[in-house]
C-alpha cells in the first residue's frame, strides 16, 4: 500500500492500528492449533484441494508471464505454457531498446538509500519515544500517529515545490532524501518492539557505563532485529515499486527507476501503436525477479515479522 507519496514514502495507516496492533502483540494464552489427526479424509482432501487450487491461481500469471517472455512476437498471446518457438531474442532486444542496466542501477541506489535511511532514523525516533520518559511524550507521539492519517495527496504539491526550489527535480534525491527524517509508520512499528524489551537490561548497561547511544545501538537495535529487517524490506519494496514519485520527479530516461521505465516502455511499445508486447512482458519479468528473489531469501524474517507485528506492507 504505497500511497501517493512524494519524496520518500508516506504510508497511510491509521491510529486504529494502535488498538489492533496492541491486541496482536499480547502473548497468546494457548495458541490454537487445529487437531489434524481427528480429521476425516474428505475434509483433508477438500483443504488440500482448496490450497492447491488457490496457489495455482496466484502463481499461474507469473508462469504465464515468464513463458511469454520467451515467445517470439506473434505468439505472446497464445496462452501456451511451453512456447512453440523458444527464443532469447526478447531478452536481447529489451536491453537494446531501453537502458535497463541504468534503470536497475538507479532503482538500487534509490531503494537502498531509502530503506537504510528510513530504518536508521525511524529506529532512533522510536527509541526516543519508547525509552525516555518526559513531559508531553504521549502528546508528541499522538502527533506522529496523526501524520499517518494524512493522505499523501495533501503534501504532494508543496513537497514537489520544495524539491523544485532546491533544484532537485530531475534527480533521484527527492525519491529518498525525505526518508532521512523517519516515517511515522515505521516509528510506530519499531516503538512497539522497543517497548517490549525488558528495561532492566538497559539499566544494567547504564550501570556498566554505557551511554544513551551505546544502549540504543549495541543493545536495543540488535534485540529488535526482526522489526529492523521488516522495516528494511517494507521500505525496499515500497521504493522498488513506487511509480508516482518517479512520474513526478524524473524527466530523462537516464534517471528513470524501473517502474517509471516500465511505464515508458508500455507507452512506447504497448500503446504506441506498434504493439511490441513481448518487450513489455520481458521487461516486467526482469524487474519482478529481483523482488521475488529477495522475498525467497528473506521469506522467514519477512513472514515472521508481519505475523508478529500484524502489520500490512
Amino acid at each position: 500500500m504505497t500511497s501517493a507519496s512524494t519524496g520518500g514514502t508516506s504510508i497511510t495507516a491509521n491510529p486504529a492500528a494502535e488498538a489492533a496492533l496492541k491486541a496482536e502483540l499480547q502473548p497468546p494464552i494457548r495458541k490454537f492449533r487445529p487437531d489434524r489427526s481427528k480429521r476425516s479424509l474428505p475434509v483433508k482432501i477438500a483443504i488440500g484441494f482448496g490450497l492447491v487450487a488457490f496457489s495455482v491461481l496466484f502463481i499461474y500469471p507469473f508462469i504465464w508471464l515468464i513463458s511469454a517472455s520467451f515467445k517470439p512476437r506473434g505468439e505472446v498471446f497464445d496462452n501456451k505454457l511451453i512456447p512453440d518457438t523458444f527464443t532469447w531474442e526478447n531478452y536481447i532486444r529489451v536491453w537494446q531498446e531501453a537502458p535497463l542496466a541504468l534503470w536497475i542501477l538507479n532503482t538500487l541506489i534509490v531503494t537502498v538509500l531509502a530503506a537504510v535511511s528510513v530504518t536508521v532514523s525511524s529506529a532512533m525516533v522510536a527509541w526516543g519515544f519508547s525509552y525516555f520518559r518526559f513531559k508531553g511524550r504521549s502528546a508528541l507521539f499522538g502527533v506522529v500517529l496523526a501524520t499517518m492519517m494524512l493522505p499523501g495527496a495533501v503534501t504532494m504539491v508543496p513537497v514537489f515545490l520544495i524539491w523544485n526550489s532546491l533544484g532537485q527535480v530531475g534527480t533521484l534525491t527527492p525519491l529518498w532524501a525525505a526518508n532521512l527524517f523517519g516515517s511515522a509508520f515505521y516509528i510506530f512499528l519499531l516503538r512497539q518492539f522497543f517497548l517490549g524489551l525488558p528495561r532492566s537490561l538497559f539499566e544494567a548497561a547504564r550501570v556498566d557505563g554505557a551511554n544513551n547511544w551505546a544502549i540504543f545501538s549495541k543493545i536495543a537495535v540488535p534485540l529488535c532485529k526482526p522489526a529492523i529487517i521488516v522495516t528494511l524490506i517494507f521500505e525496499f519494496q515500497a521504493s522498488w515499486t513506487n511509480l508516482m514519485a518517479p512520474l513526478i520527479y524524473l524527466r530523462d530516461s537516464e534517471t528513470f527507476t524501473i517502474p517509471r521505465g516500465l511505464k515508458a516502455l508500455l507507452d512506447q511499445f504497448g500503446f504506441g501503436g506498434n504493439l511490441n508486447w513481448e518487450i513489455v512482458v520481458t521487461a516486467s519479468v526482469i524487474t519482478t525477479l529481483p523482488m521475488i528473489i529477495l522475498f525467497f531469501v528473506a521469506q522467514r524474517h519477512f513472514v515472521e515479522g508481519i505475523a508478529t507485528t500484524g502489520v500490512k506492507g
Partner: protein
Amino acid sequence: MATLARPARDASATVPMRPELRRRQRRNLRAALLFILPWIIGASIFTVWPILYSGYLSLTDYDVINAPEFIGLDNYRRLLSDEKIALSLFNTAYYTVLLVPAQILFSLALAMLLNEAGRSSSFFRTAFYLPNMTPPVAVGILLLLLFNGQQGLINMALGWVGIDGPNWTTDGPWIKPGLILMGLWSVGSTVIILLAALRNVPAELYDSAKVDGANWWQRTMKVTVPMISGTIFFLVIVNTIAGLQTFTEAYTAFFGAGTYSNEAALFYAIYLFQQAFEFLNMGYASAMAWLLFVIIMIITGIQFLVSKRLVFYEGDDK
C-alpha cells in the same frame, strides 16, 4: 489508596533529591529530543509546512511558473461543478466499496485454509504473497494481457465454461470489475495478518464451543470472527484508505501516452495527479487533496462509530 500506586516517585521527590532529579530530568529530556530530532525536523519540513502551504495554495491559482494568485474559494466552487470530480469520486467509491469487502472475505477464506494446512503452509504462504512482491506497474501490464478481450487468458478460461467474456480492458463497464479482480489477486499481506490473528485465538474457546455442540459454521461465526474482529476492523480501515487512493495499476493500464480520457478508470488520485502535474493546476489540485482528506476523515470516523458496536476487544468489559 491512590498514593500507594506510585511510591517510587513520592520517595524520590523528597526535598533533598529535588535538584539532582531535576538535573536528571533535564538531561533525560535533552537526550530524548536528540533522538526524536530527525522526526521533528522532517515533520516540520515535509508535513506541517506542506499542510499549511497546501491549504493556502488551495485558495490560489498556481501553475508553478507564475506566482500564486489568490482567488478565494473559487477552487472549491469549481470542485462542485467539475463533472470529472463527480465521475472520479464515483469510480473510486465503486472500486473501493466492492473491493474492500471482497478482499476481506477472500483473505479470510485463504487465511482459514492456511491455518488448516500443516507442514506445507510455508509454501502456500509464499504463493499467496507472491503478487504483493510484483511491482504494481507489472500488475497493470498483466491486467492488460490477462484481461485482453480476444486472446486474454481470463476470457479463454471463461470460454471453457461456455461464457463469452467481455472486452475487459476497453469496454467501459468492465474496466472496474477487471481492476477489482486484479486487486483480489494482491491480498497476500491481508491474508498473512489474518493468519496471525487466527493463530492467537485461544484454543479453549474452540474446545468449549465443541463441547456445547457447535458445528464448524457456528464456531466460525461465534468464536473465530468475533475474536479477530479487531484485526478485521484494522484491515477494513487500512484497505479502505488505500482503495480511496488507488493509483498505480489503473494509471499504468489505462492512461498511456496520449490517452488521457479513459473515463471508466479515472480514479480520484489519478485525476488529482493529472491536475497537479500534467495540467499544472497546483491550486486546484490542492483543493482536491483537501476534499480527499475530508472524505477519508469522514469515512474513517463512520467506520470507528460502527466498529464500536461490532468489534470485540479482549479485556473490554463493557
